């Protein structure tokens, strides 16, 4: 039992418990704020997997961008003053059965397939420069396409969300 294992179990518990709150809470604000802890937990798991750049990116983009966007959505689409911001659920029991079967079968497959893989000897080094090099060489075309996709998405979102007179 090393520090690595303790860290993994800590972040896994944070991720899964707050993920449960996201999914099961009746209050939208509770869901949105526990999504914050889910993203932080996932960032912690990235750190344990030596993905330092991804961990920082996760916090910057998910917590700083997507979560704030979702909170804006919650605020703009609920009459916070008049109606309580609660939400209903549909067909909980079949969905719970399907989700449980999905989780069980996926875990079973993962455990039986990848149960005993030793971690490769891996030098702990920063991944940022290597990732940047790969984005500029082997992955140049996807990188450029992603930039165009982001631009199109930005313009499209502004066009759609603009209030027409």
């Amino acid at each position, binding site marked *: 039992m090393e520090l690595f*294992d*303790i860290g*993994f*179990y800590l972040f896994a518990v944070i*991720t*899964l418990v707050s*993920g*449960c709150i*996201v*999914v099961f809470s009746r209050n939208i604000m509770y*869901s949105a704020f526990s*999504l914050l802890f*889910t*993203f932080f937990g*996932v960032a912690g*798991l990235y750190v344990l*997997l*030596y*993905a330092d750049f*991804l961990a920082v990116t*996760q916090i910057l*983009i*998910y917590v700083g*961008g*997507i979560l704030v*966007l*979702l909170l804006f*959505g*919650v605020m*703009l*689409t609920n009459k916070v003053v008049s109606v309580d911001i609660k*939400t209903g659920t*549909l*067909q909980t029991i079949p*969905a719970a059965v*399907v*989700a*449980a079967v*999905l989780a069980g079968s*996926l*875990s079973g497959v*993962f*455990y039986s397939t*990848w*149960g*005993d*893989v030793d*971690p490769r000897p*891996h030098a702990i080094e920063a*991944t940022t420069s290597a*990732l940047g090099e*790969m*984005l500029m060489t082997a992955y140049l075309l996807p990188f450029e396409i*992603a930039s165009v996709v982001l631009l199109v*998405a930005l313009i*499209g*979102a502004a066009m*759609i*969300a603009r*209030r027409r007179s």
Partner: protein
Amino acid sequence: MKELFDWLPNVQLAHFLIVSAILFSLGVYGIVTRKNAILVLMGVELVLNAANINLVAFARYTGMNLDGQVAAVFVIILAAAEAAIALAIVLNVYHRFQTVNVDEVSNLKE
């Protein structure tokens, strides 16, 4: 303190994969059961995060090296674009129908 946790098995690749499998199932459950469109979007984010954990875990433990992390970067990029577009659509739906419950928004044309 450390002896307290000795019954837990040592962490390997499968542990990360199982965490991501459970997170994925939670996201699917949220997508299927929630009425509010924004909570459906939160479910989608959980699913994308679960996929990302898988990619990064395989990058660490198998021969994928940094390729998996590059794929995860692209997933994050697409998640940002998806969230922006989806929020814009939800706002439009709210202006038109005065609700964001996906079961009440059922007509294509007024």
